[in-house]
């Protein structure tokens, strides 16, 4: 009957500090959404003199916006699929492996996400140049796959480590081969983690600017389109609308992945 439901609460001061921190983290987000509706074209005053939805329709009429959006979605989808396959293979190979220390290997996988985007970018551009290849859709995908793999790997390996190994043994004990055990036992167990990792990877890829600038040729993904837009101050509200798009496309998979991994967290 031990219950943690109602233990002594945090002191008020602590709550206040926490509230302020949360506010600090979220004010920028609110501002950008608010100014996607402002009636001003260039300068921003607070509060906005009026609200309008005209920028949405303006944006809808921009062919270059749609082009960038579709490119971003195509890149993110492809990179995510590649990452889901390679990330799962990696995690299966490394989970329970102990050749020169599981930790060392795990670190090797995690490092690329820590690699500064600018370094990854320069390095990839050099590597691609060396092979003499063109900068195409596929070079962007390769660039994005580097950090997407890590995201999928992290999610899947965390779930694998929480899955009782006795399930695998039970499956083998009941006559299932390695492949059958993967198909019927491991895959269903990691499914939600894999999906969550994929969604996070999608969001990361969709947002990426730096690596994209280095691995793209003439292609413009949506974040780069926005970046270019910023040089045109009169388009600021339209840009804000596009930013709201990016926020939405990013947050939905993140929220879903958060849901999917809820059981793993606690």
């Amino acid at each position: 009957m031990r219950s943690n439901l109602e233990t002594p609460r945090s002191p008020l001061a602590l709550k206040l500090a926490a509230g302020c921190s949360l506010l600090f983290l979220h004010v920028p987000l609110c501002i950008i959404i608010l100014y996607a509706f402002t009636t001003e074209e260039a300068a921003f005053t607070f509060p906005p003199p009026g609200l309008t939805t005209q920028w949405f329709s303006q944006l809808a009429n921009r062919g270059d916006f749609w082009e960038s959006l579709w490119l971003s979605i195509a890149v993110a989808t492809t990179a995510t699929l590649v990452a889901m396959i390679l990330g799962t293979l990696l995690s299966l190979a490394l989970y329970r492996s102990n050749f020169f220390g599981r930790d060392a290997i795990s670190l090797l996988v995690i490092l690329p996400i820590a690699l500064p985007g600018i370094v990854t970018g320069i390095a990839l551009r050099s590597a691609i140049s060396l092979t003499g290849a063109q900068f195409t859709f596929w070079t962007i995908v390769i660039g994005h796959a580097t950090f997407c793999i890590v995201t999928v790997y992290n999610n899947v390996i965390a779930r694998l480590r929480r899955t009782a190994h006795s399930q695998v043994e039970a499956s083998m004990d009941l006559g299932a081969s390695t492949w059958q055990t993967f198909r019927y036992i491991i895959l269903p167990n990691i499914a939600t983690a894999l999906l969550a990792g994929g969604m996070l990877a999608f969001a990361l890829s969709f947002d990426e600017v730096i690596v994209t600038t280095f691995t793209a040729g003439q292609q413009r993904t949506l974040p780069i389109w926005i970046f270019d837009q910023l040089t045109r101050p009169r388009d600021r509200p339209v840009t804000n609308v596009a930013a709201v798009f990016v926020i939405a496309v990013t947050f939905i998979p993140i929220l879903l992945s958060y849901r999917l991994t809820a059981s793993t967290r606690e």
Partner: protein
Amino acid sequence: MAANQSRSVAVSLRQVCRYFGDVRAVDRVDLDIYDGEFFSLLGPSGSGKTTCLRLIAGFEQSTSGSILLHGQEVAGVPPYDRDVNTVFQDYALFPHMSVGENVAYGLMIRKVPKDERNRRVREMLDLVRLSGMENRRPTQLSGGQRQRVALARALVNQPRVLLLDEPLGALDLKLRQQMQVELKAIQQQVGITFIFVTHDQEEALTMSDRLAVFNHGRIEQIGTPAEVYERPTTEFVAGFVGTSNLLKGDTATRLMGSAQTVAIRPEKIRIYAPGEIIDTGMVQANGTIKEIIYLGMHNKYLVSLDNGDELTVVQQNLDALSAVNSIGRGHAVQLAWARASAHPLNPAGGSK
């Protein structure tokens, strides 16, 4: 219930060793388990009993020695090609499958036709008294029910040997006692060889036809429950299976006429008032009651012998309100036991 030596051997271990680095988890184990037997591997944690089971299941490979299943050497044979099934300590139910799917898993893998599969799953769930639970998820079941699903899932494949790895360890006392009775009944019904790992000596005594007592990776004694309890061969067995008084050295010489260490169970010792006449065939000793501990079903007496040794005596509380006893703390008493009740221990019994 005792093992019939002429029955065919189901599982045979010959000088089996399993080392993990420097740790000798299983050390030169010899063991024959007969067809249809309920055989327990009993020992404290870390004594090698579970490793032994995992060697038989194929989850571990032996470092040396040979393991035979129905006469066939199984070194290198993977778990899915061995005709044994395991009930895991944590049940290892598949959380994404219903109870029915869990039980059907082995049959599905073996491509048993759907009709037969359903029939056998239903039979098995009847056997473990879970009829109508097919569509529940493992998470919706109680501990005892999960245990039964794990049992059904292993039995549905009709293995010739069933391995059980402390299957009742996670259940509370009352449920465990109930499951002990059920498990034993199911074994008698299906007639399959059960190899049962436990650290609970009472469980092993209650359920087994025969048992092996493990300590530090080695088997200290193999026998029927009565053989092991009444005639322990080593100090370790005398202390681990029930409790024993050990008479050593001078005390043993004075009372039993030999310096060899003997073990005597607390319940075999009778308490008499001073001066009461005792059958001359009995071994006698004088002492003083140091402590009386009331345990409901019986009282436990700690008695100091005149030479300072201490013996534990257990007496069943036959009468109502027997907590109020005529023998009080500090009273002088005579103790007596049948000579045959004091069992000499193997002096080479290699455990601490």
